[in-house]
């Protein structure tokens, strides 16, 4: 450990214990955290609560946000903000969840939290109508645009079979921590969209993916940049007509949430909640490429209910 790191970490630790002391009885929350992190889950699944409450509890079980976000770090939170529809239509990540995540990032000491997506519908209307712009700003995040090529920088994907290069949003490149916050829903092209598919919102030329084998491209890109954390919103789930949906009749309330730092595991487990992972080729591809585990029996899974 370098001296500078030592100083940083000891200051961090000092702040942490100090804040624990100042919190009084709330400190027990963290005491709990420490116990749970001992369990060292690969994945935590939770059901039965509101999106923000489920997140708080599940994150605790994962070891707390401070395990992923260190003081002073820049964090980018990437929800699914694809469509110009209201939260009830479940085409975009739940704004309450986005808000809760941002707050915890700041509590963990993040210097700055960014939120963006490369939307499918007109981006300003989509940011607004999804409720995410308001929620993110209220939580203190910087909401950044992703609608033009000028925000994207070329990167190469060494492990990619089809996708060898892409243009990635500069905020992903510049941030220290990347939190991927997809919503689980039906998807007409990708069969289902979860965490791996959500990464399509951080790149520019999506049509290349569509032209050249969508599933392989999805799997290829995830090999290049693993999010530090994947938080799958399965509170309201669109079961058909995805990814945009036609009406609220496509949506059912399931009240699930999955958190994992393994993107393939997050997708495999979410797909099981949806129905089956058999029909989602890119999950299998991701597993075969070796950067994630689709076989859930090999993982240490925390299962919580509220």
């Amino acid at each position, binding site marked *: 450990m370098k001296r500078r790191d030592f100083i940083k970490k000891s200051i961090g630790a000092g702040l942490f214990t100090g804040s624990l002391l100042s919190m009084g009885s709330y400190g027990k929350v963290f005491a709990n955290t420490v116990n749970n992190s001992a369990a060292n889950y690969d994945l935590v*699944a939770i*059901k039965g609560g509101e999106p923000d409450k489920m997140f708080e509890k599940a994150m605790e079980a994962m070891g707390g946000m401070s395990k992923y976000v260190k003081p002073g770090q820049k964090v980018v939170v990437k929800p699914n903000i694809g469509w*110009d*529809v209201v939260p009830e239509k479940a085409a975009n990540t739940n704004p309450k969840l986005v808000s809760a995540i941002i707050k915890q990032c700041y509590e963990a000491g993040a210097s*700055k939290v960014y939120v963006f997506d490369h939307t*499918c*519908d*007109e981006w*300003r*209307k989509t940011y607004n*109508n999804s409720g995410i712009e308001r929620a993110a700003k209220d939580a203190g995040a*910087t*909401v*950044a*645009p992703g*609608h*033009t090529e*000028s*925000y994207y920088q070329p990167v190469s994907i060494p492990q990619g079979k089809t996708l060898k290069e892409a243009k990635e949003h500069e905020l992903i490149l510049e941030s220290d921590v990347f939190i991927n916050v997809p919503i689980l829903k039906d*998807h*007409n*092209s*990708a069969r289902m969209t979860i965490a791996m598919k959500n990464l399509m919102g951080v790149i520019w030329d*999506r*049509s*290349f993916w*569509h*032209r*050249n*084998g*969508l*599933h392989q491209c999805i799997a290829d890109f995830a090999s290049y940049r693993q999010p530090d954390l994947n938080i799958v919103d399965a509170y309201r789930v669109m*079961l*058909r*007509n995805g*990814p*945009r949906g*036609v*009406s609220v*009749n*496509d*949506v*059912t309330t*399931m009240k699930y949430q999955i958190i994992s730092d393994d993107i393939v595991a997050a997708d*495999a*487990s979410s797909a*099981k*909640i949806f129905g089956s992972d058999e029909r989602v*080729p890119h999950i299998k591809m991701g597993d075969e490429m070796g950067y994630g585990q689709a076989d*859930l029996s090999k993982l240490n*899974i925390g*299962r919580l209910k509220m």
Partner: protein
Amino acid sequence: MKKYKVLKKIRVLISLVFLVLLGGFFLDFLGTFSTGFITGFVFPQFVPSLLKFFNVFTWVATGFIVVLILTLLFGRVYCSTICPLGIMQDVISWLRRRFRKRKKPNYHYLKALHWLRYGIVGATLAFLASGSVIVLSIFDPYSTFGRIVSDLFRPLLTRGNNLLSGILKNFDIYGLYHVDLQPLHIGVMAIPLAFLIAVVWMSLTSGRLYCNTVCPVGTFLGLVSKLSLFQIRLNPNSCTKCGICEKRCKANCIDTKNMRVDFDRCVGCFNCLQSCPFSAAEYSLNPLYKKLTLPEPSASPIPNTSASGKEGVGDKASHHKTDVGKRKFLAGIALAFFSVTKLSKAQELVSYNATTPVKRENPVSPPGADSTDRFNDACTACHLCVNVCPTQVLQPSLLEYGLRGLMQPRMDYHAGFCNYDCVACTEVCPTGAILPLLLEDKKRVQLGKAQFVKENCIVETEGTDCGSCSEHCPTKAVDMVDYKNGLRIPEVTEDICVGCGACEYACPTHPYKAIYVEGNPVHLQAQKPKQEKVKREEPEEDFPF
């Protein structure tokens, strides 16, 4: 003179409000203004309001009546307070004087070019009578202003914004953001550019020459202003023929030598009134009405009124003389235009060179157009809808509609697609070419029908999943159905398709698209997508893994 100074101040104030706001509406590339606010300030624009009144029959479109009443009372004050193109010319002349030694204007009386003035009005009316608004669109000052600002200045401002936002983003400032520019066809830009050059040149040399020779609204309101209750005239008892008022008159309509004001060319700027050192320039009751209200003639006004009466007769006589030639001239123009307006419309190539070329037979008109024919005959191409459209799908066309739809907006599915939950264009259209629509109704309007071209589709040609079109479809009129080798391929259910063009926009094939929207010449009503609540077995008590 003091009271006249107040008049001028009021005029300048109101005119600046209109210029700044209308300029703002047409420059706005960020969607700053609400559609209601825009509608409120576009309300008194003469031509759009007149057209809307006949297109929609609504009290909301009575702005032109207000203008007519104002003109009947005060003369062409519209031209100096409400018309953005007129005010813009005043600003140009004012700026020019700022950079000159001579700070005071130095105009002089010009004879009216009646053949041109009435020629343009005649051509406009002839075409209107035939059901075409093309001449009116080209010459309407409001629409001309809209096109100049929207097609020429807005792209410049957007470029500036993009430059600045590119710099600011490095400092984490996202308040300004990049705005994509849709390149305009050079032919679309040519007309506003020509008019801009003409207007600037005329305002630099002779003040409101444009308004008094070219503008059909100016000419028409001039005719109305002959009946105005109040008119500007020189009082022969106090006028010394010093010529100061003539120099100040940007309408070039004061003939001090003969102590005469051609009030039908007066734009109501009131500059003459406050400039006259002898208070001889008066804003007073029209002698037409003086005669009615004051039956007993007093000594001085008699020769005055009789003189002006003579002149009136003389004017009329000269009109009659030119009438024959004028009529032939008009008929000539009209014939020429008739023959071209009905020319076949250009077919729009969906793409450039590929396996299966795709051609759109009919252009797609915006929601609320009702039918392409009705739309083409009602739109003056002011491009306000192009400005407020959040997805930029509305783009000015060149010949996609044929010549009759020159510069009118069409749905350009290469630039964007129609947002399912948006009726912005229907809310702002000042002419009623795009009729107002409730959101629920708009979601059922079928602008066109998606056409699937299997031979171009990636699923067919590459043997891989795609589904981009279906993803974007708001009604699932484009759905993915089982195909060979576990793949799924698009299938179109035409009766629930609204023709929004999301599928066409999103289709990644090139050079040709594998799906495109064929326009409905007459808009139809789409069926509602079937919607039973999705069923799902109760989730198990425990986790499925």
